[in-house]
């Protein structure tokens, strides 16, 4: 039980994030709109990305069937070797845990949990959550206010641990992994016989474009990025270009061709990292 709770915390590191970067604001080219920062001021930037839980809950509420094949196989666990791969895949499995939990799939939850736990151990993330935290959580499951306080401590410990170990690169990869998995599952959930932009899955995939924009901004704010980050930057730029094309539509929010192109790219990116090509 403690392990389950522990993993849920890792998942939530993925699901919602808030990071800060200090930047010097540039001219934002708002010729016909509001110019927000007129001077070169130091700006603290914070990014929020809604949790995949919200996406999965909306799919479940709309009676979109659970897609077992949407989960990443745990058989490939040993193929994820580098720290970057493990970090990203931890986000993928954590997202799978959320998907299974929302749909009440206990067996699949445990499978994904076991995979994520191994990756977390490999990354040394377990050290960010000690047994005292587990005990406090386990003892306060029915006390939401206490859990709120405990989660504050747990989060701070995790971040401080990652920083102390010079592993700040892990967090963006966790976040990206969790997001691309949720976008992938949404894409794989599309099963309509006739395309409609009113379809809930189509809408959810379209909404991911806004989360993508926040992620792109977040990644652009990072410094000293490794080669894996450059790959992700390129993949997100390609995907964003597809989303941008929907903004040129005169009538429809998204056409069937655009939807197919976007979901194909999401699937391609997700399968690239999960090595399911």
């Amino acid at each position, binding site marked *: 039980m403690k392990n389950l709770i522990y993993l849920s915390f890792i998942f939530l590191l993925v699901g919602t994030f808030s990071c800060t970067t200090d930047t010097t604001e540039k001219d934002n080219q*708002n010729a016909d709109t509001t110019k927000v920062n007129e001077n070169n001021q*130091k700006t*603290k930037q914070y990014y929020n990305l809604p949790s995949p839980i919200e996406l999965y809950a909306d799919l479940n*509420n709309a009676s979109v069937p659970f897609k077992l094949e949407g989960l990443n196989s745990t058989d490939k666990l040993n193929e994820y070797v580098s720290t970057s791969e493990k970090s990203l895949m931890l986000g993928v499995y954590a997202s799978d845990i959320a998907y299974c939990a929302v749909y009440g799939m*206990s067996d699949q939850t445990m499978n994904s949990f076991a995979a994520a736990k191994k990756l977390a151990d490999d990354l040394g993330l377990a050290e960010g959550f000690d047994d005292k935290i587990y005990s406090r959580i386990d003892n306060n499951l029915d006390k939401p206010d206490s859990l709120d306080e405990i989660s504050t401590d747990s989060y701070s410990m995790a971040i401080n641990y990652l920083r102390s170990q010079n592993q700040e690169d892990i967090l963006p990869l966790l976040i990206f992994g969790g997001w691309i998995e949720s976008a992938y599952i949404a894409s794989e959930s599309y099963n309509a016989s006739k395309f409609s932009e009113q379809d809930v899955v189509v809408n959810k995939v379209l909404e991911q474009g806004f989360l993508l924009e926040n992620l792109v901004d977040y990644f652009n704010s990072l410094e000293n990025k490794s080669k894996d980050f450059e790959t992700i930057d390129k993949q997100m730029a390609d995907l964003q270009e597809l989303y941008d094309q929907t903004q040129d539509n005169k009538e429809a929010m998204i056409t069937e061709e655009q939807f197919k192109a976007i979901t194909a790219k999401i699937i391609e990116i997700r399968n690239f990292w999960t090595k399911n090509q």
Partner: protein
Amino acid sequence: MNSITKLSIAMLVFAMSFSVKSYAQRCDRMKYGSDYYGDYDFRMQSVFSTLLPGDTSVVKTVVYAGKAYRIFVAIDEEYPPVHWKITTPYRVTVKKIKAIKHDTVYEYKRDEDGEIIYDENNDYKPIVTGMTVDTDTLFESKRVQKEKLVFDSEKNNSDNPYWGKIIRKTHRLFVYVYMPTDVYPEGDCANVYIGRKFLNASKSQSRMGKPRIDYH
């Protein structure tokens, strides 16, 4: 309580509290603007941070369709209200001139058979009778992000010091906070409260535990 339920509850609780944690002061413990919490849940996307004089902060967030949001910025009541704005970004395609190519086409003097006549007195160069210049402009498309003002606290005529709306279409919002240089000598917590409430209860929410809609 089975393990899945416990997991779900833990996820929900942590999700609601994750993004509101401060890195410096415990600004999250400052319950500024509590009169305006209403029945919104401010734990998911609020950001609590310390700003120094002259600092600006921006919170970039996503608001989902079908949910109601309330946003405001609050500091210690001892100080005058801080200036803040909300904008919504949008991406547009801007066409820019990449290059202008000029192709000059000369017309030459020709004989009855259409052959070009060369000038014996000028190194047998063709005799030019006319000239046209074709101009080809090459454009390149570039996506540019712009922002549209949604709310400005200094221009708010409402009795309520917050922005609130039911979101019909998912989009991003940027919340800017400007810390004056002359009012807060040592800086202070400037908390961006982003509250959300579901318009309809869902079965997922009930399965994941009772939705927490009260801040305290």
